[in-house]
């Protein structure tokens, strides 16, 4: 069933080739610009939040990989305000398929692969410069971090989606919440002021998507309130993020159907 749906989405995008490639190029360009931002900072100051350029680049690229994967699947929840306004959700509710699955398959955007590609390239370029010991633990962390990161960012998308039911035209809110969270995740967590650091770790675990596991990979200790060993618990943080998302989504859909929040 999902193959049929996603397959037809992909075919429809490939049907308009110029538009498709323009979108891919834009998505790649956005990734590059964001990286240049980081590069400019570190070209002027040698150390940013306790990390040098290759180290900060690893954090940036790991966070971006996770985010790109999450956006590929859940990015569609961005358009919830439009769906709500046009009454498209009513149509989805009379189909025998969970609402969330219909939303995420409603527009599967291949162009988002551009961002993923950039992040993977940065990781490949940066790794030799870090002179790491490739112990099983390091390899485990390198593999699991983008996956867990994707799960956490996906939970952000879903949380924002659930909250849309309570907001009038909440596109800005989604942007602030989801993209703000991803920005916090790309930075070395030590540059965030302590309250923000705690917020984006223990409530919305953005720093867990890259910074904390990267500290473990590079064998560094963490700043105050953010010890590196927390990075081992990334899957638990992801589970917490999904619990929040589930609650927000359930409250949202119950409000929509008038079942009480």
């Amino acid at each position, binding site marked *: 069933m999902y193959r*049929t*749906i996603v397959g*037809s989405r992909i075919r*429809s995008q490939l049907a308009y080739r110029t538009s498709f490639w323009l979108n891919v190029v834009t998505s790649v360009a956005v990734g590059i610009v964001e990286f240049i931002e980081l590069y400019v900072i570190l070209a002027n100051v040698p150390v940013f939040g306790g990390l040098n350029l290759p180290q900060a680049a690893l954090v940036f690229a790991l966070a971006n990989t996770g985010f790109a994967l999450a956006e590929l699947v859940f990015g569609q929840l961005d358009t919830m305000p439009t769906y709500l306004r046009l*009454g498209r959700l009513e149509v989805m509710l*009379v*189909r025998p398929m*969970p609402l969330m699955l219909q939303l995420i398959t409603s527009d599967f955007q291949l162009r988002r692969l551009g961002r993923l590609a950039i992040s993977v390239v940065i990781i490949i370029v940066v790794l030799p410069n870090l002179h790491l010991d490739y112990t099983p633990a390091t390899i485990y962390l390198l593999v699991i971090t983008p996956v867990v990161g994707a799960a956490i960012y996906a939970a952000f998308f879903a949380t924002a989606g659930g909250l849309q039911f309570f907001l009038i035209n909440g596109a800005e809110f989604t942007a602030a919440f989801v993209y703000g969270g991803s920005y916090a995740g790309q930075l070395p967590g030590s540059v965030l002021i302590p309250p923000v650091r705690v917020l984006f770790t223990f409530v919305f675990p953005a720093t867990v998507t890259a910074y904390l596991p990267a500290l473990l990979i590079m064998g560094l200790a963490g700043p105050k309130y953010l010890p590196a060993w927390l990075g081992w618990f990334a899957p638990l943080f992801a589970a917490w993020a999904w619990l929040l998302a589930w609650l927000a989504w359930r409250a949202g859909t119950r409000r929509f159907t*008038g079942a009480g929040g």
Partner: protein
Amino acid sequence: MGEPIIALENLHRTFTVRQKVGRVRRKTRVVHAVDGITASIAAGEAVGYIGANGAGKSTTIKMLTGILVPTSGRVRTCGYNPVPQRRLLAREIGVVFGQRSQLWWDLPLRDSFRILAAIHRMQSLDAESRTAQLVDHLGLAHLLDVPVRQLSLGERMRGEVAAALVHRPRLLVLDEPTIGLDMISKERLRHFLLAERAESGTTLLLTTHDMGDIERLCERVLVVDRGRLVFDGTLSSLAARVALQRVLVVDLPEPTPNLQVPAATHIGSELDGQRQRLAFSPQQTTAARVLADVTAMTEVIDLTLEEPAIEDIVRTLYGVG
């Protein structure tokens, strides 16, 4: 006859509306969108559900299709409790919202049908033969490869109806299916729905503003006003209580005294009789016969035919009852 396909028991739905009063104060007001509706529809019936804008039609439809939970009362559709058993119910019903598309706007119709068949987990052979049948009956063959956004309203609406019927639902709910359509598209859709019902025995629930839809398609009519049911009976018993009269408006070349035509009543003249209005009952005569009688007396420059307005019907029901 077994369990009714739709059973509504003292159904209520209220909404709370917050209004600003003054600068900071807010007042909440409770709106009774549906205010105690009890009705039962048996399998195989064709029922028209009519009422003015804001009378509670859409709210009722949402409650019985699993989109909205009733505030109180009971609703069963196809034996299910709609909202908690939404996905089971969705396999049994087809819904067309005249104002909202269920098709994928950037994909060809063919893909929309394929996706819907997949969502309903139909066997591919079964899905193909069913789609082919619908495409044939609705005359969609030449439109299958056109992206939905390029279809005209009439074409799209035929696509919508086909999409709602792909999984062979037992109950078809149409919410304003003919809104905005021209006469030919309307007639084509009605013709298809009649044939489909004759063939598959699908139960039909239809909301509309067009009495023509009701007269062509429905045996039974429910009239709702301000959340309450004010009439539930056959179309002919509705016709007996309120005059479902058509009005033929004719424009004449020069001022003419009031026209006297058999089986029609002169109800008004404008511009010294250059425009005249003749009411007639479709049970007694036809528009063509009235027009023929008029043209026998004088030349006709232009004409329009007015259908009875739902609002007038509701008003008359109050006047009589």
